[in-house]
């Protein structure tokens, strides 16, 4: 009894991953546009560092500044793809008019959402690697001192709180079919502001620093910079890893619970059928 049920869930999981892949394939022109947008954003940040040196009266370590900013920009490119893919999944289904069909299928919501997340993580990684390779070529990035093992571990551990945040935000179009999309973009903006993508969190005012301290992206960025720029080992990034592990344990179950609540609410008020 358990095995057929698990097989069914595994098949459904593959179905969600495959569906997302097929959608990307069909909307390839849009994806190409977004890839170029990510690339241009990252390159702009790289050139910003170079520009700062030429306008600044004092001298500073260009390589260090460039690396600092590019690591932030690349990570943001990755995190925003993952975040958007997960959090817009419900909105896209609303837009296509398939949300009722998906919610009516005999699939656990955990399988549904993890299928979406798995694709988002894979796709985000592929896109970021493409941008990274181009950035390395253009800026002659020196990552010889990077501790790749630590970077991979930090990224892997960051996956869970990021998934939790994405699931939490994907609830917004269920709560408000008309305004969910805008709210999702607003949340993304706040994450960018209070995470230290382009600057150390210490330059932020007090309230934003407090917000940054509960933002998993802050620890991901610090951990990744420590690994890629500082070449630190896993043991020395534990202060960054510990909060990420803790947030993963909290945010994923919280995201699933909130999604369940929002789904029941949408069914109570008849919000699933509405387009928008």
């Amino acid at each position: 009894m358990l095995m057929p049920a698990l097989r069914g869930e595994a098949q459904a999981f593959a179905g969600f991953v495959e569906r997302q892949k097929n959608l990307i394939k069909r909307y390839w022109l849009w994806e190409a546009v977004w890839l170029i947008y990510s690339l241009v954003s990252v390159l702009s940040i790289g050139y910003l560092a170079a520009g700062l040196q030429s306008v600044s009266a004092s001298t500073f370590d260009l390589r260090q500044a460039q690396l600092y900013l590019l690591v932030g920009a690349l990570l943001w490119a990755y995190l925003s793809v993952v975040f958007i893919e997960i959090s817009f999944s419900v909105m896209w289904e609303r837009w296509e008019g398939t949300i009722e069909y998906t919610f009516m299928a005999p699939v656990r919501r955990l399988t549904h959402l993890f299928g979406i997340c798995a694709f988002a993580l894979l796709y985000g990684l592929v896109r970021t690697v493409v941008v990274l390779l181009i950035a390395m070529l253009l800026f002659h990035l020196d990552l010889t001192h990077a501790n790749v093992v630590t970077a991979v571990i930090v990224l892997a551990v960051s996956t869970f709180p990021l998934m939790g945040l994405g699931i939490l935000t994907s609830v917004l179009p269920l709560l408000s079919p008309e305004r969910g999309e805008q709210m999702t973009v607003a949340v993304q903006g706040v994450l960018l502001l209070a995470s230290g993508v382009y600057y150390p969190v210490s330059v932020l005012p007090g309230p934003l620093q407090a917000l940054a301290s509960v933002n998993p992206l802050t620890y991901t960025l610090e951990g990744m910079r420590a690994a890629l720029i500082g070449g630190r080992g896993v043991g020395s990034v534990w202060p960054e890893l510990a909060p990420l592990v803790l947030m993963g344990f909290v945010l994923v179950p919280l995201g699933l619970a909130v999604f369940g609540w929002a789904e029941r609410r949408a069914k109570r008020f008849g919000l699933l059928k509405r387009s928008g």
Partner: protein
Amino acid sequence: MSQVSQPAVETCGLTKRFRRPGGGRRAWPWRQAGSEVVALHPLDLTLERGSTTGVIGPNGSGKSTLVRVLATLVLPDAGWARVFGHDVVTDSFRVKRHINRVSVEAAFFKELSAWENLLYASRIYGVADRSLRLRVEGVLARFGLPRDVLDRPLRHLSRGQQQKVAIARSVLTTPSLLLMDEPTTGLDPRSKREVQRMVADLREDSVTTLLCTHDMDEAESLCDRVLLMDYGRVLADGRPSQLGRLEDLFFGLSGRGMEEADVEAEQVVEGSVC
């Protein structure tokens, strides 16, 4: 009661109210504003296995709400509904294994091909295997769809073809209860006849079907039982031969014609939006 002797659908005092959007102030942003509309008055209903039951009524009569409650997409406010003995609220996962639904708008990813949509549906219903492509081609052939339809994006298919693919999709998942919410509305006469023939074919598979429609002739020809609904209430319930001309019956019981009732429903919706 054993599973086999359970009716396909059973409801008792099933009630649903909605808040009509617009008007009134919301005390809190997450609270729904507007006036309340009763979509379903307490409904007691039993559908026998293998039957084809038509639900006829104007817009706003409660047809789609009934379908959505049975499809686990809307939670009732009071009463209960069971599908093959499983409660739609407390045992919704088992209910989902038994049902599929064809709605007025074919719910597809329009940029994906028919095959990609059917593959997705088969996977989430756990019925995809190596023979799927062959089975899909068989079902499409049965419903008179050419094989090349499979690899074309859905948006390139006519509405009639899309609706046929939607019915093929529901058949692929072998539902015991098929909920059809106005599957022929908006189709051209030829597509409409073809879709009606598909629905008639399903009777041979002993699938229990609940068919919501505006079309009296469709209900008379395809269903062995008809429920006439208005304002969330069942006005009449019986075999088409017993009920006589449904248009006249509706007029006699509601005091207005079906078209007039549709216009009235549209005005109510527009009024609520303004």
